[in-house]
C-alpha cells in the first residue's frame, strides 16, 4: 500500500522519486518487518489468500491529482486486503497514451491491467493487445452495466473492456469572472461568443475567451459542434465508410469551430493546443471558458497553486447555435486486461474487483465521471453540479467505431489540418473539407 503510493508518485517527478524511493528503501529495514523478498510486500500479506505475494501493474491514465490518487490508493489497498496481491500503479498522461500502448504492445514493459479510453478499445483490440473479458461483464454486479454502454468494447461478440466511468463534456468557466463582468450563463452559441469577447476585453488580449482545441483531442470540440446540427464524420454504408464531412450540417459545425480563431476569441498562436495545454493556461487565468469535464478540476487547483478553487469553477452545457444543448462526445473510461499480462487470472480478478458497483461508483463519483451503473447515474442527475453532464450524456455521440479512427483522429490529425488550412486562408472551407473527406475515407477503409 505504502509502496504503491510511492510508485505512483515516482512517475510524476524524477526528482521527487529519488527522495521517496530513498524512504521506500528504508522501509523494509524495520526490524519488526519479516525479511521478505524485494520489499514489494511492505503491506503485510497473510498467507492463504488467492494471490498472496503476487504483483500486478496497473496503468492509470491522466495526471496524478489528489482525488484520483486517493481513490487509486483506496482501491489497491482494498484489493491487497482481499486477494493478497500488491498493485503497482503507473500514471500515463493522456496525450502519451497511444505511444505508450504502442511500445507496450510491441513487447516493451507494459501493464497487466490498464485504464483505457472507450474510443481506443477498437484500435487496441485490432492490434491484439487486449484480452477478452466477456465472462466478467456477464456475471455478478457487472451484469447490471447497461449493454448499450459497451458498443465500442464489443467486437465480434466478445467484450474487451469493462466500462468504468462515463464522460461527457461541458463548458468549464470561472464564476468569479462571470460575476465581476455581470455575465449570464450563455444559452446560445452567440451568447457564448459575446461572453468570450467580454472576458477578453476585460482580462487582456492574451486571454482566450473560449479556447480553441486543435490538438490531439480536437475532435471532442469539433465533434460536439458538428454533431449538434446532425453532422457525421463518417457512416458505414455496406462494407465501406463514407465520410459526411462535406455535408452542410457538418460544414456549419466546422465553421463555428474555425470561427473561434478567425474571430479572435482564441489566439492564432495556439492552434495546436490540446485539452491538457488549455487546462494549464486556464489554471494561469489565461482562458475564460473551454470544453472539458470535471476531472480537470483537481488539476486546475494544483496548477494554480490553490488560487483557483472549486468554488470559482462551474460548468454549463455547451449551447447549440439556436439554443438548447449541443451534442457531446460520448467519452468514457474503461478498464481492461492487457494481452501480455503476466498472470491473466490475477489481472481479470482485479478488473472484476475494480468494476464492482462499490468501486466503479466510487471511481466515477470521486473522479468526476458519470457512473456506469444506471441507478447511480439517475441519482446523480438530480445534483445541480452534475446535471450539465447528465444532460449532455443523453445526447452523447461516439466517433466512427473503427480501429483506424485513431489514425484519422490523432496520427494524421485530418480535421485539425483542415481547420488550420482554413484559418490560415490556404483553403476555403469547401476545399479543406473535400480533402478531409477523401482522406478520412482512405484511412477508415484501409485493411
Amino acid at each position, binding site marked *: 500500500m505504502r509502496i504503491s503510493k510511492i510508485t505512483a508518485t515516482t512517475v510524476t517527478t524524477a526528482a521527487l522519486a529519488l527522495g521517496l524511493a530513498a524512504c521506500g528503501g528504508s522501509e523494509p529495514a524495520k526490524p519488526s518487518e519479516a525479511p521478505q523478498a524485494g520489499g514489494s510486500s511492505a503491506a503485510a500479506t497473510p498467507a492463504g489468500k488467492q494471490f498472496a505475494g503476487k504483483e500486478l501493474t496497473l496503468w492509470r491514465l491522466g495526471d496524478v491529482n489528489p482525488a484520483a490518487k486517493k481513490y487509486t490508493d483506496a482501491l489497491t489497498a482494498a484489493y491487497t486486503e482481499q486477494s493478497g496481491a500488491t498493485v503497482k500503479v503507473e500514471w500515463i498522461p493522456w496525450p502519451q497514451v*497511444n*505511444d505508450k*500502448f*504502442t511500445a507496450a*504492445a*510491441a*513487447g516493451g514493459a507494459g501493464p497487466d491491467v490498464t485504464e483505457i479510453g472507450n474510443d481506443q478499445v477498437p*484500435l487496441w483490440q*485490432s*492490434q*491484439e*493487445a487486449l484480452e477478452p473479458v466477456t465472462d466478467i461483464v456477464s456475471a455478478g454486479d457487472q451484469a447490471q452495466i447497461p449493454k448499450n454502454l459497451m458498443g465500442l468494447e464489443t467486437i465480434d461478440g466478445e467484450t474487451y473492456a469493462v466500462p468504468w466511468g462515463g464522460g461527457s463534456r461541458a463548458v468549464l468557466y470561472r464564476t468569479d469572472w462571470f460575476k465581476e463582468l455581470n455575465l449570464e450563463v450563455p444559452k446560445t452559441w452567440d451568447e457564448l461568443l459575446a461572453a468570450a469577447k467580454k472576458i477578453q476585453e476585460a482580462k487582456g*488580449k*492574451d486571454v482566450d475567451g473560449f479556447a480553441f482545441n486543435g*490538438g*490531439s483531442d480536437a475532435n471532442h470540440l469539433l465533434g460536439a459542434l458538428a454533431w449538434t446540427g446532425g453532422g457525421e464524420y463518417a457512416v458505414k454504408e455496406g462494407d465501406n465508410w463514407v465520410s459526411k464531412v462535406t455535408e452542410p450540417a457538418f460544414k456549419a459545425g466546422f465553421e463555428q469551430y474555425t470561427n473561434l480563431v478567425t474571430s479572435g476569441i482564441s*489566439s*492564432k*498562436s*495556439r*492552434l*495546436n493546443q490540446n485539452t491538457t495545454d488549455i487546462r494549464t493556461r486556464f489554471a494561469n487565468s489565461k482562458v475564460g471558458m473551454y470544453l472539458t469535464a470535471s476531472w480537470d478540476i483537481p488539476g486546475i487547483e494544483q496548477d494554480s497553486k490553490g488560487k483557483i478553487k472549486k468554488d470559482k469553477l462551474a460548468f454549463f452545457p455547451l449551447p447549440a447555435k439556436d439554443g438548447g444543448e449541443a451534442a457531446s462526445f460520448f467519452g468514457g473510461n474503461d478498464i481492461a486486461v492487457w494481452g*501480455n499480462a503476466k498472470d491473466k487470472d490475477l489481472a481479470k480478478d482485479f478488473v472484476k474487483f475494480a468494476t464492482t458497483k462499490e468501486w466503479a461508483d466510487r471511481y466515477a463519483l470521486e473522479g468526476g465521471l458519470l457512473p456506469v451503473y444506471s441507478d447511480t447515474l439517475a441519482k446523480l442527475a438530480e445534483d445541480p453540479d452534475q446535471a450539465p453532464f447528465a444532460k449532455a450524456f443523453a445526447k452523447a455521440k461516439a466517433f466512427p467505431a473503427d*480501429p*483506424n479512427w*485513431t*489514425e484519422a483522429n*490523432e*496520427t*494524421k*490529425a485530418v480535421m*485539425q*489540418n483542415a481547420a*488550420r488550412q482554413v484559418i*490560415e486562408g490556404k483553403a476555403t472551407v469547401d476545399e479543406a473539407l473535400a480533402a478531409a473527406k477523401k482522406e478520412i475515407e482512405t484511412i477508415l477503409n484501409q485493411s
Partner: protein
Amino acid sequence: MTDTSTLARGGGRHSSSPGRGSNRRRPARAKGLPNWAVPYVLLIPGLLVIIGLLVYPLIQMAIMSFQKVGVAQVAGKKPATWVGVDNYTSIFESEIFWTALRNTVVFAAIAVPLTLILGTAVGVLLQKLGRKMSLVLIVGLMFAWAVPPVAQGAIWRWLADGERGIINWALNLLPDWLSNLLFGRSDWTGEPWLNDAWSIYMILILCVVWAGIPFVAVSVLAGLKGIPSELYEAARVDGSGAWRTFWKITFPLLKPVFAVLTVLSIIWDFKVFGQLVVLGGQTNREAFNLSMYAVAEAFKAPPKMGSGAAIAVVLTILLLIVTAAYIRQLFKQEEL
C-alpha cells in the same frame, strides 16, 4: 564472414605451431599471422560492430519496407506478410510524403551552405583575434555546441513564441516607420511563428545553423593552424588583400576539411529531428520532414512499420545519392 574464418585459421595455426615449430626453424614472427592478414584481423572488431549495429538493421529495414509489419507482427503473434511494393505506392500517393520530401531537401539546401559559410567566417575570425578575445569566443561557441538538440529546440521555441517570445518583442521595439518600411506592419504582438510550415522552418534553420557553426568554426580553425604562415607573409608582400588571400591560399589548402564538413553537414541536416519535434513540427503535418514522417507512420497508433521503413529507405537512398554526387564532384576537381 571470410574475415572471421581468417581469424580461425590464424588461431588454429598458432595453437598447432608448438608441435611443428621446432623442425621448421622459422623466425618468431611466423608464429603469428601472415603479413597480409594483419590489417584485416585488426579490422574485424570494428567490422563486427558495424555489421551488427548498422548493416543488419539496414537490411532488416529494407526487408520490412516490403512487408506489412504492425504491433502484432513485432510481438510475434502473427507472421509478417509480404506486400510487394504496396508500402512504396501508398507513401508516394500520400500528399504528406511530397511535402515532407520538399521540406527535407529545401531545408538542407539552405541550412548546409549557411552553416558552412558562417562557420568558416567565424573560424577565420578566430584566427585573426588576439588570445583573449578568441578565448572568449571559443567559450561562447562551446556553449552553443554543448546544447543538446531538444534543448536547442526549446530555446528557439521560446524565442519565437507568439506572446512571450523575444523575437516579437524585439520587432515591436523597432521604430514604427522602420518596421512599416521593412515589413509593411508595425504591430508584431502575438505573431505566431510556429504555426506555418515555412515559418517553423525559418526558425529551424536559425536553430540548426546556430548550433552547427561551432563545429565548423573549430574545424576550420584547426585547419588554419596547419597552414604555414610563410604563405600568408608572401601573399602580403605581393600585395594580396584578405579576400584574395582566402580564395587563393586558405580555401585550396583547406579543401579536404571543407569536403568532410560538407558531407557531415549534409548528413546531419537531412535527418534533423529533435529540434523539429520541439518546434512544433510534430503537431503540424505540413511541417513534417522525412524522418518525422517515417516516425509518425512507424510508431504512432496504429503503427505501420512497413511504410515507416519504406520512407526511411527513400531517405537513405536520397542521402547516398547526394553524398556520392558531392564526393565525386570533389575528386573530379582534384584531378584537374
